[in-house]
């Protein structure tokens, strides 16, 4: 708050901050599963609420990692028909366990063809480079492609694939504090938490290596008692 000292983060045993930046957390949920709601949770909850995704909507979740698995849980809770799109065919069982209704292996051209123009929304959690044009074509008229992943290079796509069908390309950044509290309250009411692998503090460098290989279901959470 002196505008000089950097704010040090949460890989730590204690923190002091102004109460207006702190959310209330229910005693009802497993605390380790609540931690990722503060970023992965709100980042997916916020755009789904903004676009009023719910009953009668067909939503695709692109990528099944920390963000994607929360998008599936929220969209299912909101009443949407949820399809996971993934380049890994072996993620189908995991997707269905999380509550997804359908699964599409995006490397299988036949499966993709079946879903052309099918979705009302795609929530795109992928932070690696990928083919936006291919995914736009899975959206129906006025379909909305919502980016919450951050690829490292500028995005390229066919303008024809976006304009045809009056499709919308948009993005969303985390979510504000009142909405974060609303999300935590919603999770407490509906028993929603993140699926986590709890680790010791000293394992963190190995955890980073595994995150870069997408080798985690679906979020590492540090047990601060081990610091």
């Amino acid at each position, binding site marked *: 708050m002196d505008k000089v000292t950097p704010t040090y983060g949460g890989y*730590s045993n204690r923190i002091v901050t102004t109460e207006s930046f702190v959310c209330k957390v229910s005693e009802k949920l497993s605390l380790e599963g609540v931690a990722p709601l503060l970023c992965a949770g709100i980042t997916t909850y916020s755009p789904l609420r903004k676009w009023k995704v719910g009953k009668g909507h067909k939503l695709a979740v692109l990528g099944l990692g920390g963000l994607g698995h929360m998008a599936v849980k929220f969209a299912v809770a909101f009443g949407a028909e949820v399809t996971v799109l993934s380049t890994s065919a072996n993620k189908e069982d995991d997707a269905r366990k999380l509550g997804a209704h359908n699964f599409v292996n995006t490397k299988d051209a036949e499966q993709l063809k079946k879903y052309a123009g099918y979705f009302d929304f795609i929530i795109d959690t992928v932070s690696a480079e990928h083919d936006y044009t291919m995914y736009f074509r899975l959206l129906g008229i006025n379909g909305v492609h919502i980016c919450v992943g951050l690829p490292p290079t500028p995005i390229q796509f066919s303008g024809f694939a976006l304009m045809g069908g009056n499709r919308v390309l948009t993005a969303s950044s985390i979510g504000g504090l009142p909405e974060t509290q609303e999300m935590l309250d919603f999770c407490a009411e509906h028993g929603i938490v993140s699926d986590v692998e709890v680790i010791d503090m000293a394992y963190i460098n190995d955890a980073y290596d595994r995150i870069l290989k997408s080798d985690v279901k679906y979020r590492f959470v540090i047990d601060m008692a081990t610091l």
Partner: protein
Amino acid sequence: MIAAKAYAVQSATDKLGEWSFERREVGPSDVQIEILYCGVCHSDIHQARNEWGGSKYPMVPGHEIVGRITKVGADVTKFKEGDLAGIGCLVDSCHECVNCKNG
């Protein structure tokens, strides 16, 4: 000041390691939280390795924080000692600009 320990990076090429530092005293509107769990986000790695630019060191990553309140300032109304609490990505924003005013 309040003694604290953490895992920090000292530079963009450093691995995370133990580090001792100080948190500020609890002001009238502040709460102190004993952190119980902290999630690990891919953006922690981007920030620790300065892949998005603008990183400052030493850096303690981590923005998926849950814990229990151990101390509250005199003007705090929302929390009391013993409450569970969460802190995410937003801390110390200005409350005055157009972004803040839009929630």
